[in-house]
């Protein structure tokens, strides 16, 4: 199995403006402390961790919305960590992202079809309403939705539009950043099943960021557990769940509600 992404000793820090001294630069907070991992091609890799573990920051480095301080991000053998804005642009078509909050990630001023067609147009792959309608059909939304504004859709429908927008470009990689955390339980299941099905159909590589291990278990092939910007556990999902290497993973695992019910519960 080849690795689509090879990340080597990735460091990233933010300036801590709250503690900036009167003179001189602000101290920096280290968010990613030397990550090294591979993301295998054609698989769904879960990235788990508690709030503040750096999982979203790491995801945004993968699609180069954030610039790392040092280290390599090899995408298909090419280091994208140091590419400038112009150089990254043609590669971005292969690096798509589905956002946590579809309300704020879909521009409220644009109609659904335009939200989907605009990136196609920018990458020179058409950008017609028909293409947008086709993408909507693939995520199970009727063509009539093309003329709606995002606020006229429900949360689950909006997130489907977010998925349609990402897959319309036929990328190789999709970053899904907590994409179901804002949805109700039944929409969550539908959106996750849709993502899994599309990933299989299109042979997509997906990085799925979540804080919920029960979702990771159903969806992902591999899992990486982050804690305070460091990898504390990594490997195929079954292995990590059977034999967690760190206290953090065990704690996250214990937070999963049990799927089986104890039969004796009624008889007591």
């Amino acid at each position, binding site marked *: 199995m080849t690795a689509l992404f090879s990340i080597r000793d990735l460091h990233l820090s933010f300036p801590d403006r709250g503690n900036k001294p009167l003179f001189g630069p602000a101290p920096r907070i280290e968010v990613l402390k030397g990550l090294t991992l591979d993301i295998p091609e054609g698989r769904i890799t879960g990235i788990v961790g508690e709030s503040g573990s750096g999982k979203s920051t790491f995801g*945004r480095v993968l*699609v180069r*919305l954030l610039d790392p301080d040092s280290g390599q991000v090899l995408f298909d053998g090419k280091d994208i960590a140091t590419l400038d*804005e112009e150089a990254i*642009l043609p590669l*971005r*078509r292969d*690096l*798509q*992202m589905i*956002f*946590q*909050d579809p309300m*704020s*990630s*879909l*521009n*409220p*001023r*644009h109609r659904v079809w335009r939200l989907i067609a*605009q*990136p196609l147009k*920018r*990458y020179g792959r058409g950008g017609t309403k028909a293409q947008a309608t086709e993408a909507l059909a693939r995520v199970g*939304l*009727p063509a009539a939705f093309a003329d*709606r*504004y995002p*606020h*006229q*859709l*429900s949360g689950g*429908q909006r997130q489907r539009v977010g998925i349609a*927008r990402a897959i319309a470009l036929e990328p190789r990689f999709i970053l899904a950043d907590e994409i179901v955390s804002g949805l109700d339980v039944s929409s969550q299941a539908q959106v996750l099943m849709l993502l899994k099905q599309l990933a299989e159909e299109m042979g997509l590589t997906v990085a799925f960021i979540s804080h919920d291990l029960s979702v990771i278990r159903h969806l992902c092939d591999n899992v990486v557990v982050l804690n305070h910007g460091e990898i504390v556990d990594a490997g195929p999902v079954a292995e990590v769940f059977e034999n967690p290497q760190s206290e953090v993973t065990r704690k996250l695992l214990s937070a999963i509600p049990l799927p089986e019910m104890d039969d004796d519960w009624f008889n007591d």
Partner: protein
Amino acid sequence: MADVTASPRSRAGQGLNLRLWLPLTWIVILICAAVFAPLVAPQDPLMQDLMMERLPPFFMDGSEPGFWLGTDSLGRDVLSRMIYGARIALFVSVIAATTTCLFGSALGLLAGYYGGWWDRVISRLVDIWMAFPPVLFAVLLVAVMGTGLTSVIAAIALIDWTRFARVIRAETMVQARMDYVDSARIGGARRLATLVTEILPNVLPTIIALLMLEMGIAIIVEAILSFVNLSISSDDPTWGSMIAEGRGAIHFAWWVLLFPLIALFFSVLSFSTLGEGLKKRFDPVLQ
């Protein structure tokens, strides 16, 4: 899948419509008066007749037909002068407010979106600019450039661009942090394209509201400058100069001052209310 249809207009929506239509009606009347001034004005606004001086308005004893709102101390018809005054008021408000808006909003968008040096330079410039007393600044400017409409418009634009720059900068900063901006970059948009096609449409309602407010302010500034005789020549009828002339005769010919003042009041109020109304009307989320 549930079908989502537009919800029926709520009560708040109807109140909103009234707030939109009332000011719009006044502004349309104003525009008609300005455009068709020679047709609708009952008298020549410049014609003096000392036999007809200080005639009262139509509802008082001693009024003359044809001089509906009375005459001033030179026997000029107040209504006709107000109608011609609307021409100058509207011309100044549209040209000055648009110029101010374009200049100030562009700087605000750049400062708010690009941050860094753009923001530092533009924000400091705004700070320095706002330290000048505006009226003094305008008077000084008109004194240097000479009186006339061009000077008035330039004075308004040079004083008030900071209002747009400040507000639009703050609004742009809020919008620039939204996920749809990152989403556009993921979708292949360059920085400038993101600003124009993604952020600008979301800031536009605020720009329109400010533009309308600025039109009202421009009318006031023009009136102030007319009042102190720094606008156009005092022969030409402007609301400000009418108020200035009426001031001396307020005890025995109050109509010379009051009617232009009412027109000024309603115009400024209409523009700012219309701005708020339009802002809500064009927001697809609030609608």
